[in-house]
């Protein structure tokens, strides 16, 4: 049962991603992205990362995706112009992609990954909070400067006059 659910979610994620890339209509691509993001949240659940799954839904589905769709809708003459571009040199692209894919698959199957012993699923929120306030306090604080820079840049670029 769990296996079936897992493969359904994988199908949802990859299928969504394929539609995002292959569809020429920007609105369809944006909607397809929704399924990919949901699928990712599902994968996090399978890894027992409950907090991460919640954050994924809230930030990516609730925030970023809505923003993308707003951006698409507010752009002028969106329906008449095919903004989404079809790719060029598909043949070479396919060869390169398949090559990289096979290398990655070989790598993943032949590598002795670090194994963690299976434990009972526990809430991860407390642990993440502890890490953010102890081991990763500096990255946590520095992220605020990153956001400040991004905010200033967005304001600067969208301001009407110079």
């Amino acid at each position, binding site marked *: 049962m769990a296996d079936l659910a897992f493969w359904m979610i994988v199908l949802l994620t990859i299928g969504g991603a394929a539609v995002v890339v292959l569809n020429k209509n920007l609105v369809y691509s944006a909607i397809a992205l929704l399924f990919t993001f949901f699928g990712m949240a599902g994968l996090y659940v399978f890894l027992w990362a409950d907090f991460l799954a919640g954050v994924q839904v809230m930030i990516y589905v609730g925030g970023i995706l809505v923003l993308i769709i707003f951006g698409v809708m507010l752009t002028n003459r969106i329906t008449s112009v095919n903004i989404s571009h079809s790719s060029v040199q598909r043949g070479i692209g396919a060869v390169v992609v398949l090559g990289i894919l096979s290398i990655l698959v070989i790598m993943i199957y032949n590598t002795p990954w*670090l194994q963690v012993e299976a434990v009972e699923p526990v809430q991860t929120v407390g642990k993440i909070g502890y890490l953010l306030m102890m081991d990763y306090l500096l990255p946590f604080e520095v992220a605020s400067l990153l956001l400040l820079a991004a905010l*200033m840049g967005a304001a600067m670029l969208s301001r009407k006059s110079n």
Partner: protein
Amino acid sequence: MNNLQSLSYYWPEIILTVTILVAIIADLFYSDKDSGKTALWVLGGLILAQIAIYIQDSEIVTTLFMGNLAFDPFASFFKTLIVLATILVIFISQKSSELDGHRTGEYYSLMAIMVFGMFLMASAIDLIMLYLAIEIVSIVSFILAGYLKGDLRSNEAALKYVIYGAFSTGIMLFGMSIIFGLAGSTKFFAIQEAMWNLEGSAQFAFTLAAIFILAGFGYKISAVPFHFWTPDVYEGAPTPITAYLSVAPKAVGFAVIIRFFNTVFGDSGAFIDPSIYTFTTIAWPQLLAVLSVITMTLGNLVALQQNSIKRMLAYSSIAHAGYMLMAIPTLSSQGVYAIMLYLVMYLFMNLGAFFVVIYVKSQGGGESFDDFKGLGWKMPIVGIVMTVFMLSLTGIPPTAGFIGKFYIFASVIKVGPQMYWLAVVGAINSVISLYYYFRVVKVMFLEGEPSETIIVPSPTVLMILFALAIPTVFFGIYWAPIADWVSRSLTLFIKVI
């Protein structure tokens, strides 16, 4: 060291953070015309931060913030270099005609944020910290590259930069995730330890991860084949920003490469014991050697064909990244020493060359070779100074560029006959670069009409010109102070096992 204790070693960054906030708030009170005065706040903050770096006890070598940052002379060296570059670029920006009519308050506050990001890059010893630091620098670079909103080329530069940046960061993160899957930690030293105990079958994954991560680092120093953004971004961005991007982020990019490869693949002590590198079958020194050859050759060959001096300088900066990369596969402290020395010399000569381009443009000229015709007669001082920078960039004695190149080649040759080919390729490339650097000199003095009137630059322009040209000549004759400083800074944090 825990978070609270670390604060007392963190004064430069704290001063910088306060500077950023003060600059942003001060900017609110300036009218559009006076907005440029924000630069004064940023300048003051940078000087204070530099004083804080200077008075820090260089005897103490430790880690800060639970092993997120290293506190060592190596990091302090790069921080000083960044502050120096930023101060010079702030002065250069004042003289740029491209920024006229733009509100420049954000320009300078964003620059201060970028300095903060580069400080972190120079000292990060944790993958998450490193990623965040690179992201800060990248995002600010995107914004600054697109600062001239009305200019289509500037828009193109920003957009291309974002797309390439996102792509290479994605590849780098994938590599980091593979390393985390092997080592179970994001700290460089824990990864190093885990690598020692790895089974042979993990080598393949490790190699792949190293290549992926190199894509992210290579993008920052614009090494081929991750250089595609460089010419367009350098051409479209405001020229002071182009000058800045070609010096400061590149320098910390090298700091990151040295620290990462030194720690994760080696003994972490500035390549003190090369024999240690035989434990791994990964041919990463050879990989980097090939990368450096491709980088300098492509940079030089394409620079030959340019008609715009700005674009020529963009490709030449790719070539210079190639020269510096040459010294990394030597796996010796001499190699690291040579790179650090080269970066100091490169700072003055490259900023100088870009400043001349900015000045000529602000005087109603342009950026192409045609616009430089007869410049040596019209503005003799500028012409002579530009000749000095071109000589130095080629690496002709007695200029700083020669000393820089000399140390790089010496470190390569010292390794032994198996590296001679690399030195030969480097020498051939230097000869190629002679052609296009001297084309500038030829155009300035031998072409065009000798003009009747002579333009003498204003005192401030002269001051900046000489502040860049005098070190370029002086350090070519007497480089002991720089050499001393570099050798004092050659201490990296080593984990005591």
